[in-house]
């Protein structure tokens, strides 16, 4: 199977196949009102990613990479290549040492809070996409407050606010009001919402948000086009430059991710790392964080796909991020099971969610008409349980690691 044809077939159905045949808008063209910051970063990332031939790397390249104190882009490529898999134990040990050097045994805890699930995008793999007939909901300020109050009771001091991606339903002002309420309960507030212009990020920073996470999903524009059939999200470059616009708007840090397994995960992981590297170079003060979501391979699938991201490949990617950018945060999602998460935080991950619900209004008990979940979680442990799992592994849970000034 060639890389170009690879698709995780579990996400396709007849309706999607029909849509894929239709003529669709140019995914590389900005829509009116989308700020174009004219960065060269996109071209650099796409060029290097296209040229990345991971099969060309050998065991010697991996050994060379492991010997380097500072890993170059080429070393990063070697560490992501299939040739690195036999070295996974050694790589993990080096990653663990780097993590300890920069973070000690500290692991930050947070939880995502979904305040809406309206979405205008048609991303064929996502539970929230606008064609899915799920229960939609949006919390009003009073309900948001109840949610935050319920989360705050668990002891958490950091939240990630999510809305789904509907500018019309979840306006910038709506998100801003949610952030202001969150400030009353939490020390650190992240946003995972639709990409917006730098002045809008500046407004949300003023409201109290600290950092912005945007998943590019895949850095392959051609594959991106076939997966994101409609909506603002279809515009690939606008999404790519979201982190830079967030930093221009004054955000302290940004998070990046490819949804590993959507396309060729090695190339996507490389592109994510290079994107982060270029952002840090241009904005040296910026705090950078990786998330590592993956589409889990289907168990008992008779088509063994070399592009599948099994646990070993996930570990390889996480360690490669760590060794390439030792100072960057790495967040491990509750899509992964407790066993995988508990091990990854001992090796390279530095942030873990707990008490997670991806539905709308599920933290506060009194909210009615809850909206449906974006995806099923694999680690449903409470804050208390995750806290103690960390301390049992001699890790130090960190509830707050930032002062908003």
């Amino acid at each position, binding site marked *: 199977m060639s890389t170009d044809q690879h698709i995780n077939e579990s996400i396709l159905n007849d309706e999607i196949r029909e849509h894929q045949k239709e003529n669709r808008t140019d995914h590389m063209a900005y829509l009116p009102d989308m700020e174009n910051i004219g960065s060269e970063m996109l071209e650099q990332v796409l060029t290097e990613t296209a040229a990345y031939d991971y099969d060309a790397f050998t065991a010697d390249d991996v050994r060379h990479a492991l010997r380097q104190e500072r890993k170059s882009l080429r070393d990063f490529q070697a560490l992501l290549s299939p040739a690195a898999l036999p070295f996974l134990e050694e790589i993990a040990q080096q990653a663990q040492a780097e993590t300890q050097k920069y973070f000690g045994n500290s692991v930050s805890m947070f939880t995502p809070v979904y305040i809406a699930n309206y979405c205008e995008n048609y991303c064929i793999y996502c539970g929230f996409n606008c064609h899915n007939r799920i229960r939609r909901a949006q919390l009003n300020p009073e309900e948001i407050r109840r949610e935050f109050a319920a989360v705050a009771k668990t002891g958490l001091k950091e939240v990630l606010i999510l809305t789904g991606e509907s500018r019309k339903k979840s306006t910038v002002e709506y998100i801003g009001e949610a952030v202001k309420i969150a400030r009353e309960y939490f020390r650190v507030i992240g946003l995972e919402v639709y990409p917006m212009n730098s002045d809008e990020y500046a407004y949300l920073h003023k409201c109290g948000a600290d950092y912005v996470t945007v998943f590019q999903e895949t850095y392959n524009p051609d594959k991106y086009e076939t997966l994101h059939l409609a909506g603002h999200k279809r515009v690939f470059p606008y999404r790519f430059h979201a982190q830079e616009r967030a930093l221009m708007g004054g955000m302290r840090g940004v998070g990046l991710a490819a949804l590993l397994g959507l396309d060729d995960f090695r190339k996507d992981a490389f592109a994510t790392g290079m994107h982060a590297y270029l952002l840090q170079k241009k904005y*040296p003060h910026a705090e950078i964080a990786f998330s590592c979501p993956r589409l889990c391979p289907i168990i008992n699938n008779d088509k063994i796909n070399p592009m599948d991201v099994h646990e070993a490949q996930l570990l390889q990617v996480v360690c490669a991020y760590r060794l390439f950018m030792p100072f960057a945060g790495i967040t491990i999602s509750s899509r992964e099971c407790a066993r995988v998460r508990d091990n990854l935080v001992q090796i390279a991950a530095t942030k873990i969610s707990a008490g997670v619900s991806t539905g709308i209004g599920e933290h506060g008990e009194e909210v009615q008409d809850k909206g449906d979940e974006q995806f099923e979680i694999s680690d449903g442990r409470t804050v208390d349980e995750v806290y103690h799992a960390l301390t049992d592994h001699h890790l130090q849970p960190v509830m707050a690691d930032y002062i908003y000034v």
Partner: protein
Amino acid sequence: MNTEKDIWKLGNHEFTSRFILGSGKYSLELIQVAVENAGAQIVTMALRRANEGGLANILDYIPENVTILPNTSGARNAEEAVRIARLAREVCGSEFIKIEIMRDSRYLLPDNYETVKATEILAKEGFVVMPYMYPDLNVARDMADAGAACIMPLGAPIGSNKGLCTKEFIQILIDEIDLPIIVDAGIGRPSQACEAMEMGAAAVMANTAIASSGDVKAMAGAMGQAVQAGRTAYLAGLGQTRTRGGSASSPLTGYLRD
């Protein structure tokens, strides 16, 4: 020599221990035992880690008999550092403040320029200002003029455990600046802490060296002992080092007869 009377001062506060313990990067419940084993009287703490009344609040783990030295880590400029310092005074009830200003998330190198600005503002507000800086003599003089209580030059990039990479420049500060020089960042092993003290540093600070060791308690103790040994050696006066060979009795003046 009576080391019990070997007192040093920060502002109006007197200390006998010359080892300052960091508190990040290792489990909070180990802080007390590390303090005790190292004989530390000062513990640094990132204010951003304080979680008053909440879970994993670092303030709950610092023993009452030690001086808390809050730092401004997370600040990217003087203005942010000043605001964090003022918050720290409220939260910790302490006038001590270690200024950390970084504009680089990769190397975490201190921004000397912004640090001078913050030092000046905070010293005027009555803080005991302890600026963490790159060892630059001119800037160190500016820090002293701005009211710093000490100078905290880095030995190597923070967290690197690389030791006294900036040794020559730290020595210049020790020789020229009439304030305590506290070597901060980079000290990776007890021998390096000892060496800094032999050079005449007033104190040494370490965190990662202890946090990343196999045994926090034991390494804290080793650091404390090394600092003490280095201080004792400094006070005793080090023997001269020969650059080559043995010591000829009088190689240049042996010809003199009267």
